[in-house]
């Protein structure tokens, strides 16, 4: 089976500190990969390099066997094929929820407004936010905003979805509704790479758990293996701290 995403020896440093020190990772079609690790282990940076929001210092990233780190590639076109959801939602406060969701459809995919809004309303209805379509994001709760942000990211039917700590900024009682949506996306067959602090969720939803430690993949495997019988001492230490 061919990989949707393939990272080969990806490296990135900021100033003098190496954040990613040679990451190799393959993500298969329909696979859900959870990145776990302490703050500063490189999870977010890794996601940002995949979406070309950061430039790699070395190594290659292949999206369906095409090297997207090649400077000759059109970065905007590639970003449009990869959805990203951020920790702090980053909805556009001056646009209605519906306009947030349809912005990329209208201006990147060049779908006409009528079709874009039909698609947007359908997605919002699915997550129970149809009534808020014309409202502005600040009227929504954190959980609703994050779900709207997820819908915005998948509106253009991306081939890959990146979730960067999507529940970290939420009150505990709002976490559930967001995780439920992620679970539904998995059921739809979405290929997902997610950085998360929700170990229970990672165990529940991920097909594979990847433990990052100081910029390298220290261990990876099925959730049962990584959480149940970690091979590495540092994995055990990390899990002991967070569980």
């Amino acid at each position, binding site marked *: 089976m061919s990989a949707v995403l393939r990272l080969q020896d990806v490296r990135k440093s900021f100033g003098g500190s190496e954040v990613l020190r040679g990451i190799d990772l393959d993500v298969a079609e329909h696979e859900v990969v959870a990145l776990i690790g302490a703050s500063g282990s490189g999870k977010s940076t890794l996601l940002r390099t995949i*979406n070309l*929001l950061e430039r790699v210092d070395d190594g290659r990233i292949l999206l369906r066997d095409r090297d997207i780190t090649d400077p000759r590639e059109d970065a*905007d*076109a*590639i*970003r*449009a*094929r*990869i*959805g*990203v959801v*951020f920790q*702090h939602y*980053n*909805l*556009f*406060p*001056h646009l209605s929820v519906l306009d947030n969701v349809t*912005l*990329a459809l209208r*201006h*990147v995919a060049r779908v006409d407004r009528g079709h874009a809004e039909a698609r947007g309303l359908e997605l919002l209805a699915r997550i129970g936010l149809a009534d808020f379509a014309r409202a502005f994001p600040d009227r929504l709760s954190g959980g609703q905003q994050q779900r709207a942000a997820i819908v*915005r*990211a998948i509106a*253009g039917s991306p081939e890959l979805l990146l979730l960067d700590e999507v529940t970290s900024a939420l009150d505990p009682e709002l976490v559930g509704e967001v995780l439920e949506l992620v679970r539904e996306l998995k059921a739809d067959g979405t290929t997902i790479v997610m950085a998360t602090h929700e170990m229970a969720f990672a165990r529940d939803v991920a097909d594979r758990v990847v433990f990052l430690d100081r910029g390298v993949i220290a261990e990876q495997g099925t959730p049962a293996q990584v959480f149940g019988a970690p091979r590495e001492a540092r994995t055990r230490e990390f899990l002991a701290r967070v569980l």
Partner: protein
Amino acid sequence: MNQTEARQPSELELERRAFRRRQGLRSVLISLASTLALAVVVWFTLINTPGWARVQQTFFDPEVFVAALPRVWDGFLLNLRVLLVAAVSVLVLSIAVAGIRTLRSPVFFPLRALATAYTDLFRGMPLIIVLFLVGFGIPGLIGSGGPRIPSEVLGTIAIVLVYSAYVSEVFRAGIEAVHPSQRLAARSLGLSHGKTMRLVVLPQAVRKVTPALMNDFVAMQKDVGLISVLGAVDAVRGAQIVTSQFYNFTPYVVAGLLFVLLALPLIRLTDWYTARLRAREQIGGIV
């Protein structure tokens, strides 16, 4: 559900409200009395100055006022036209300059340097000097054989050059004030740099700097009167002509009044908008 509406305030709250009402009434009375007292003092000081009778005659002559109004009004219409054209041009030019100054790629260094030099130069130079440089420099460049450019057009160009430099800095401040995560989110959706600016950054930046923009617009409203130094027959020039006919300065007061009347609605609008922004950001606060 509606219990709170039907509920009577407690004795304590009623007493507090009564106290606040008394306090409020007292401060209204005090401010009324002090305003009146100040007005009376100013008025008596003014009419008792030795030259008051002469000043009243040369600046506030009702007959000259009526006689000057049509001429000054005609000139004022030119000011309005100049203002309209200048305001639109300033918006376009200043957004362009601000946009160029926020480009980060090294490819744009020459453009960026040019934009920086432009804002530095025209923010530093007095408007009156720019008016002379443009008003006499451009016709000089064209030479006597070329077409004659009306002085109000040259004046408008000078005003646009100076004000765009100021306003572009206002826009730049607004653009920088939009959180970088907004740009990140827009780019992550595949929007280009230009579309990110147009659809996400600029609309938010404009909201942030609207009070400052309105302030600059008020300033420009009166500076359009300076085109008279190039010989354009606007309100100020019109007033000057009538003044020389009557040997009386009342026409200038007429022109001044017209400018104030033009500015007032916008000043009030700015105040209202600023108050609304403040109210929205401080929900429920009393300080």
